[in-house]
């Protein structure tokens, strides 16, 4: 495009590069002949000229700097502050990802106990491709709504059967990814709200245990906290942990939505004495999290491992995964039937799930989305005749009651959220969880950043969020005409033509 107003960048940069040399000379002369004060300018331009000479003639890693000199730095400057400008000024209320401003504001209001009613109409484009909840002509009277109660472990007749009484739980986030104050705020909030909290795979849940809430211990592929030196399960350590009163369930993590099929690496520089103790790893070696449990190499060994954990732990035990191939999952379920070992629950994590750190390509391109995977898992379990014995948890951006109702219509029994709870703590979606520099002190271990995160205050917000979610969940449930969440089916959800395949499968 040619415009008379267009700036000729090459000419401008040539002028600027020459201009600073001329200015340097002028300041030097003025400093010498008029007043020494002008040498302040001489020094400033001298440094700029030296830097500019380096950028233009002695480096080759930045083409723009080599071609255009110091003016190119303005591009890097603008680029570096771009995300903040977009977030605060230029992005509309509904276009940010992973959560837009409206979604975040809704969580903030719920967690602060502020009225969250809006006026005039939806701000969404009411996207016809998105699933919507179907309401009934005959909504359920509030007093007829049944109490939310999901029993995990009841199918096996376990004495340790655990009852979940609210539709939402705190999903897996480990100490390590989160700071100490965050873990304690969430745990205290969970206790106040009467919901269980998943410990994440970060090893012995020291800070989770401090607040006396119910816990789901997550057994990650590296088995932090319950591993032997080679990274295999140490039965005794698991038995000791499971014997703790607060540990109510065990979740074997096969994969995670944000990075399915990927292990992690904990560099030795980041392993403090405390983390080494909690995770049960040496402090002087990098720790590799394998992509799969060393014990689980096929369906047979995976089910054997499940049976072993169920036996050693004696608690309701399930598995978490992000669905990849449904034929593999069916094979796994058939193997469970052969070995007469069913998990007490299955957590289906959508590919849109969150993480503290993962390679971008894994976040963007791997794993089935929750609303496609969930009905498939529900369908396979039903077809194999074991659905009634297994509780289904769902996770993946389920931060609002509407999404939770949709998930339950697609087969879930209980919803999990991690990032929703981070937002309730005041997360501003700065997207720095992997940098230890979280400005609101949530995903950092820096004491000066954690200082602002008051455990007493924030734990109340967590509880407020759960209360407000549950209240609205009941209202929506009543509107569907159902008496309980367990009676929701795909009949309660509307799919556009684009998504008919999901409905057709059920």
């Amino acid at each position, binding site marked *: 495009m040619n415009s008379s107003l267009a700036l000729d960048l090459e000419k401008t940069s040539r002028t600027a590069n020459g201009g600073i040399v001329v200015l340097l000379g002028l300041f030097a002369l003025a400093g010498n002949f008029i007043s020494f004060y002008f040498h*302040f300018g001489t020094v400033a331009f001298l440094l700029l000229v030296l830097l500019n000479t380096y950028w233009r003639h002695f480096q080759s890693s930045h083409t723009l700097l080599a071609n255009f000199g110091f003016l190119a730095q303005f591009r890097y400057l603008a680029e570096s502050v771009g995300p903040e400008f977009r977030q605060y000024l230029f992005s509309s209320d509904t276009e940010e990802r992973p959560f837009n401003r409206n979604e975040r504001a809704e969580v903030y209001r719920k967690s602060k106990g502020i009225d969250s009613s809006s006026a005039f109409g939806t701000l969404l484009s009411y996207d016809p491709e998105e699933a919507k909840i179907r309401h009934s002509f005959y909504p359920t009277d509030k007093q007829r709504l049944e109490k939310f109660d999901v029993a995990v472990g009841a199918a096996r007749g376990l004495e340790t059967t655990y009852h979940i009484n609210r539709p939402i739980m705190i999903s897996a986030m480990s100490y390590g990814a989160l700071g100490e104050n965050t873990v304690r705020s969430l745990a205290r909030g969970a206790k106040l709200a009467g919901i269980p909290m998943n410990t994440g795979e970060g090893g012995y849940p020291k800070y989770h245990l401090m607040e006396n809430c119910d816990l789901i211990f997550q057994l990650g592929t590296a088995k932090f906290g319950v591993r032997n030196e080679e990274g295999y399960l140490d039965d005794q350590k698991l038995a000791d942990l499971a014997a703790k009163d607060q540990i109510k369930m065990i979740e074997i993590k096969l994969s995670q939505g944000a990075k399915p099929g990927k292990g992690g690496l904990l560099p030795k520089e980041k392993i403090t004495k405390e983390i080494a103790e909690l995770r049960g790893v040496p402090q002087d070696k990098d720790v590799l999290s394998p992509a799969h449990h060393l014990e689980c190499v096929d369906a047979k060994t995976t089910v054997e491992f499940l049976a072993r954990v169920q036996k050693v732990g004696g608690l309701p035990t399930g598995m978490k995964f992000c669905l990849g191939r449904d034929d593999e999952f069916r094979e796994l379920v058939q193997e469970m039937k052969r070995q007469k070992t069913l998990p007490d629950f299955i957590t289906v994590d959508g590919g849109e799930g969150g993480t503290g750190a993962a390679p971008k390509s894994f976040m963007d391109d791997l794993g089935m989305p929750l609303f496609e995977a969930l009905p498939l898992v529900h369908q396979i379990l039903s077809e194999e005749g074991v659905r009634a014995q297994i509780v289904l948890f769902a996770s993946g951006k389920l931060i609002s009651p509407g999404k939770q109702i949709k998930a339950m219509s697609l087969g879930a029994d209980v919803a999990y959220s991690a990032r929703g709870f981070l937002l309730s703590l005041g997360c501003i979606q700065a997207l720095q969880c992997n940098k230890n520099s979280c400005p609101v002190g949530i995903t950092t271990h820096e004491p000066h950043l954690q200082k602002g995160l008051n455990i007493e205050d924030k734990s109340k917000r967590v509880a407020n969020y759960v209360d407000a979610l549950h209240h609205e969940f009941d209202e929506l449930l009543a509107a569907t005409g159902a008496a309980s969440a367990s009676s929701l089916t795909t009949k309660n959800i509307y799919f556009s033509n684009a998504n008919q395949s999901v409905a057709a499968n059920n």
Partner: protein
Amino acid sequence: MKTTLPTRLAQVVAASILIFASVMKFKGDPGAIEIFTKLEMEPGGRYIAAIFEMLAGLLLLSSFAAFGSVLAIGMMAGALIAHATRLGLEVNNDGGALVGQLAIVLLSSLFVAISRRKEIPIIGSSF
């Protein structure tokens, strides 16, 4: 980035000299007054230089040492210009001690700036 012992040492050396020089200027040390009189900057220039030296010294001792080192390099470049154009190598028969101090601060600040260059926003990533 991990800060090495030599870098920390260089920070402390440069900061000590800068803070000492700054205090002498604030106190109105006769040597400093003479220098700034020769530069025709007395007393304003002396106070400005003292403020910048103090700031550079304190920054060098803080987590913003990279910024302190750049400021110190600037100050020392200015001092070099003064010695080259008006003061000469020897000031008040000091046998070149002042220029020696200047060289120590300049070299240690350069060392700090180079080893902590990644901490300087925008510019740091180009090295």
